[in-house]
Protein backbone atom coordinates (compact mmCIF):
# COMPACT_ATOMS: atom_id res chain seq x y z
CA UNK A 1 0.00 0.00 0.00
CA UNK A 2 1.09 3.53 -0.68
CA UNK A 3 1.11 5.94 2.23
CA UNK A 4 2.15 9.53 2.83
CA UNK A 5 2.99 10.82 6.31
CA UNK A 6 3.37 14.41 7.44
CA UNK A 7 4.45 14.37 11.07
CA UNK A 8 4.15 18.11 11.77
CA UNK A 9 0.48 19.06 12.23
CA UNK A 10 1.32 22.74 12.79
CA UNK A 11 4.28 25.02 12.23
CA UNK A 12 4.95 28.72 12.44
CA UNK A 13 7.64 30.97 11.01
CA UNK A 14 8.47 34.64 11.11
CA UNK A 15 8.00 36.58 7.93
CA UNK A 16 11.16 36.57 5.74
CA UNK A 17 12.57 33.50 7.45
CA UNK A 18 12.94 29.97 6.10
CA UNK A 19 10.85 26.98 7.10
CA UNK A 20 11.00 23.31 6.16
CA UNK A 21 7.98 21.01 6.10
CA UNK A 22 8.60 17.28 6.35
CA UNK A 23 7.04 14.44 4.41
CA UNK A 24 7.80 10.75 4.19
CA UNK A 25 6.12 8.21 1.98
CA UNK A 26 6.06 4.55 1.27
CA UNK A 27 5.66 2.82 -2.06
CA UNK A 28 7.01 -0.21 -3.81
CA UNK A 29 6.84 1.51 -7.20
CA UNK A 30 9.91 2.85 -8.94
CA UNK A 31 8.25 5.44 -11.13
CA UNK A 32 6.15 7.97 -9.33
CA UNK A 33 5.82 11.66 -8.76
CA UNK A 34 5.62 13.73 -5.62
CA UNK A 35 3.77 16.96 -5.16
CA UNK A 36 3.27 19.67 -2.62
CA UNK A 37 -0.11 21.35 -2.68
CA UNK A 38 -1.10 24.45 -0.76
CA UNK A 39 -4.57 24.99 0.65
CA UNK A 40 -5.09 28.59 1.82
CA UNK A 41 -8.10 29.64 3.89
CA UNK A 42 -10.10 29.85 0.66
CA UNK A 43 -9.79 26.01 0.67
CA UNK A 44 -8.73 25.74 -2.97
CA UNK A 45 -5.90 23.25 -3.62
CA UNK A 46 -3.03 24.93 -5.41
CA UNK A 47 0.01 23.14 -6.83
CA UNK A 48 3.25 24.40 -5.28
CA UNK A 49 5.92 22.11 -6.71
CA UNK A 50 6.40 18.74 -8.37
CA UNK A 51 9.26 16.22 -8.25
CA UNK A 52 9.83 13.29 -10.59
CA UNK A 53 11.18 10.29 -8.70
CA UNK A 54 13.65 9.31 -11.41
CA UNK A 55 15.29 12.74 -11.29
CA UNK A 56 17.95 13.21 -8.67
CA UNK A 57 17.96 16.98 -8.98
CA UNK A 58 15.72 18.67 -6.47
CA UNK A 59 12.89 20.71 -7.93
CA UNK A 60 12.80 24.46 -7.35
CA UNK A 61 10.05 27.01 -7.97
CA UNK A 62 11.06 30.52 -6.95
CA UNK A 63 11.05 30.56 -3.12
CA UNK A 64 9.98 26.92 -2.90
CA UNK A 65 12.37 24.01 -3.14
CA UNK A 66 12.36 20.37 -2.15
CA UNK A 67 14.86 18.02 -0.59
CA UNK A 68 14.11 14.68 -2.21
CA UNK A 69 15.81 11.68 -0.67
CA UNK A 70 14.61 8.68 -2.64
CA UNK A 71 16.35 6.01 -0.59
CA UNK A 72 14.96 7.44 2.61
CA UNK A 73 11.56 8.07 0.96
CA UNK A 74 11.63 11.61 2.19
CA UNK A 75 10.32 14.69 0.40
CA UNK A 76 10.56 17.91 2.40
CA UNK A 77 9.50 21.37 1.28
CA UNK A 78 11.60 24.42 2.02
CA UNK A 79 10.02 27.86 1.85
CA UNK A 80 12.53 30.69 1.77
CA UNK A 81 11.77 34.32 2.56
CA UNK A 82 8.37 33.37 3.97
CA UNK A 83 5.53 35.74 3.18
CA UNK A 84 2.22 36.31 4.93
CA UNK A 85 0.48 34.87 1.87
CA UNK A 86 2.23 31.56 2.48
CA UNK A 87 -0.05 30.97 5.47
CA UNK A 88 -1.96 27.85 4.51
CA UNK A 89 -2.26 24.12 4.95
CA UNK A 90 0.36 22.24 2.95
CA UNK A 91 -0.21 18.74 1.67
CA UNK A 92 2.41 16.34 0.42
CA UNK A 93 1.08 13.92 -2.19
CA UNK A 94 2.26 10.81 -3.99
CA UNK A 95 1.03 10.29 -7.53
CA UNK A 96 0.31 7.30 -9.69
CA UNK A 97 -2.30 9.19 -11.63
CA UNK A 98 -4.54 9.63 -8.64
CA UNK A 99 -3.05 11.48 -5.71
CA UNK A 100 -2.52 10.06 -2.24
CA UNK A 101 -2.29 12.87 0.28
CA UNK A 102 -0.63 13.20 3.64
CA UNK A 103 -2.43 14.58 6.66
CA UNK A 104 -1.30 18.12 6.03
CA UNK A 105 0.78 20.70 7.91
CA UNK A 106 -0.77 24.00 8.88
CA UNK A 107 1.78 26.76 8.40
CA UNK A 108 1.34 30.15 10.02
CA UNK A 109 3.58 32.98 8.85
CA UNK A 110 3.81 35.65 11.51
CA UNK A 111 4.52 39.33 10.81
Amino acid at each position, binding site marked *: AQTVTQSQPEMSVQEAETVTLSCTYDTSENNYYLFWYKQPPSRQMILVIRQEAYKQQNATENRFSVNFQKAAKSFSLKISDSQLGDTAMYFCALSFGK*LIFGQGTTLQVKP
Partner: protein
Amino acid sequence: EPEVTQTPSHQVTQMGQEVILRCVPISNHLYFYWYRQILGQKVEFLVSFYNNEISEKSEIFDDQFSVERPDGSNFTLKIRSTKLEDSAMYFCASSEWSTGANVLTFGAGSRLTVL
Protein backbone atom coordinates in the same frame (compact mmCIF):
# COMPACT_ATOMS: atom_id res chain seq x y z
CA GLU B 1 -5.82 30.52 -16.89
CA PRO B 2 -8.22 27.58 -17.29
CA GLU B 3 -9.94 26.49 -14.12
CA VAL B 4 -12.19 23.82 -12.72
CA THR B 5 -15.54 25.20 -11.61
CA GLN B 6 -17.66 23.65 -8.87
CA THR B 7 -21.22 24.36 -7.81
CA PRO B 8 -22.67 24.88 -5.32
CA SER B 9 -20.00 26.33 -3.09
CA HIS B 10 -21.99 25.32 -0.04
CA GLN B 11 -25.01 23.08 0.36
CA VAL B 12 -26.94 22.27 3.49
CA THR B 13 -29.18 19.22 3.39
CA GLN B 14 -31.15 16.98 5.67
CA MET B 15 -29.99 13.45 6.40
CA GLY B 16 -31.44 11.02 3.88
CA GLN B 17 -31.77 13.54 1.09
CA GLU B 18 -30.11 13.21 -2.30
CA VAL B 19 -27.39 15.67 -3.22
CA ILE B 20 -25.78 16.39 -6.57
CA LEU B 21 -22.50 18.26 -6.71
CA ARG B 22 -21.50 19.67 -10.06
CA CYS B 23 -18.16 20.28 -11.69
CA VAL B 24 -17.04 21.73 -14.99
CA PRO B 25 -13.54 20.38 -15.70
CA ILE B 26 -11.00 22.08 -17.92
CA SER B 27 -12.17 21.63 -21.48
CA ASN B 28 -9.26 19.64 -22.94
CA HIS B 29 -8.84 17.41 -19.91
CA LEU B 30 -9.85 13.77 -20.20
CA TYR B 31 -9.56 12.48 -16.63
CA PHE B 32 -11.80 13.55 -13.81
CA TYR B 33 -11.65 12.97 -10.10
CA TRP B 34 -13.58 13.53 -6.91
CA TYR B 35 -11.84 13.92 -3.57
CA ARG B 36 -13.27 14.47 -0.12
CA GLN B 37 -11.91 16.35 2.88
CA ILE B 38 -13.63 16.01 6.21
CA LEU B 39 -12.96 19.15 8.23
CA GLY B 40 -9.46 19.17 9.66
CA GLN B 41 -8.51 15.90 8.03
CA LYS B 42 -6.60 14.88 4.96
CA VAL B 43 -7.87 14.91 1.42
CA GLU B 44 -9.12 11.46 0.39
CA PHE B 45 -9.53 10.01 -3.07
CA LEU B 46 -13.08 8.98 -3.96
CA VAL B 47 -13.19 8.14 -7.66
CA SER B 48 -11.56 8.69 -11.03
CA PHE B 49 -13.43 8.77 -14.32
CA TYR B 50 -12.33 8.42 -17.89
CA ASN B 51 -14.06 7.77 -21.19
CA ASN B 52 -17.46 7.81 -19.54
CA GLU B 53 -16.73 5.18 -16.98
CA ILE B 54 -15.20 4.83 -13.53
CA SER B 55 -11.54 3.88 -13.80
CA GLU B 56 -10.87 3.55 -10.09
CA LYS B 57 -12.74 4.05 -6.84
CA SER B 58 -11.89 3.95 -3.17
CA GLU B 59 -13.55 2.08 -0.32
CA ILE B 60 -15.35 5.30 0.59
CA PHE B 61 -17.13 5.32 -2.76
CA ASP B 62 -19.88 2.87 -1.90
CA ASP B 63 -23.29 2.31 -3.47
CA GLN B 64 -24.54 5.62 -2.09
CA PHE B 65 -22.23 7.46 -4.46
CA SER B 66 -22.38 7.73 -8.22
CA VAL B 67 -20.70 9.87 -10.86
CA GLU B 68 -21.86 10.91 -14.25
CA ARG B 69 -20.85 13.02 -17.18
CA PRO B 70 -24.30 13.91 -18.46
CA ASP B 71 -23.07 16.14 -21.27
CA GLY B 72 -19.80 17.28 -22.78
CA SER B 73 -18.94 19.68 -20.00
CA ASN B 74 -20.37 18.69 -16.61
CA PHE B 75 -19.12 16.02 -14.24
CA THR B 76 -21.38 15.26 -11.30
CA LEU B 77 -21.16 13.47 -7.98
CA LYS B 78 -24.43 12.20 -6.57
CA ILE B 79 -24.96 11.04 -3.01
CA ARG B 80 -28.24 9.13 -2.92
CA SER B 81 -29.14 9.23 0.75
CA THR B 82 -26.87 11.52 2.72
CA LYS B 83 -25.57 10.61 6.15
CA LEU B 84 -24.16 12.89 8.83
CA GLU B 85 -20.68 11.59 8.11
CA ASP B 86 -20.93 12.75 4.50
CA SER B 87 -20.45 16.30 5.75
CA ALA B 88 -17.20 17.36 4.14
CA MET B 89 -15.59 19.47 1.47
CA TYR B 90 -15.78 17.78 -1.92
CA PHE B 91 -13.16 18.65 -4.50
CA CYS B 92 -13.40 17.97 -8.19
CA ALA B 93 -10.19 17.77 -10.21
CA SER B 94 -9.25 17.14 -13.81
CA SER B 95 -6.09 16.30 -15.71
CA GLU B 96 -4.89 15.74 -19.24
CA TRP B 97 -3.45 12.29 -18.59
CA SER B 98 -3.61 9.63 -15.93
CA THR B 99 0.07 8.91 -15.45
CA GLY B 100 1.90 9.94 -12.32
CA ALA B 101 3.32 12.96 -14.11
CA ASN B 102 0.04 14.63 -14.63
CA VAL B 103 -0.89 17.65 -12.62
CA LEU B 104 -4.39 17.65 -11.23
CA THR B 105 -6.15 20.98 -11.33
CA PHE B 106 -8.60 21.29 -8.46
CA GLY B 107 -11.78 23.25 -8.18
CA ALA B 108 -12.53 25.48 -5.19
CA GLY B 109 -14.61 22.76 -3.58
CA SER B 110 -18.21 22.27 -2.54
CA ARG B 111 -18.90 22.24 1.17
CA LEU B 112 -21.65 19.79 2.10
CA THR B 113 -23.30 20.03 5.48
CA VAL B 114 -25.68 17.23 6.44
CA LEU B 115 -28.02 17.96 9.34
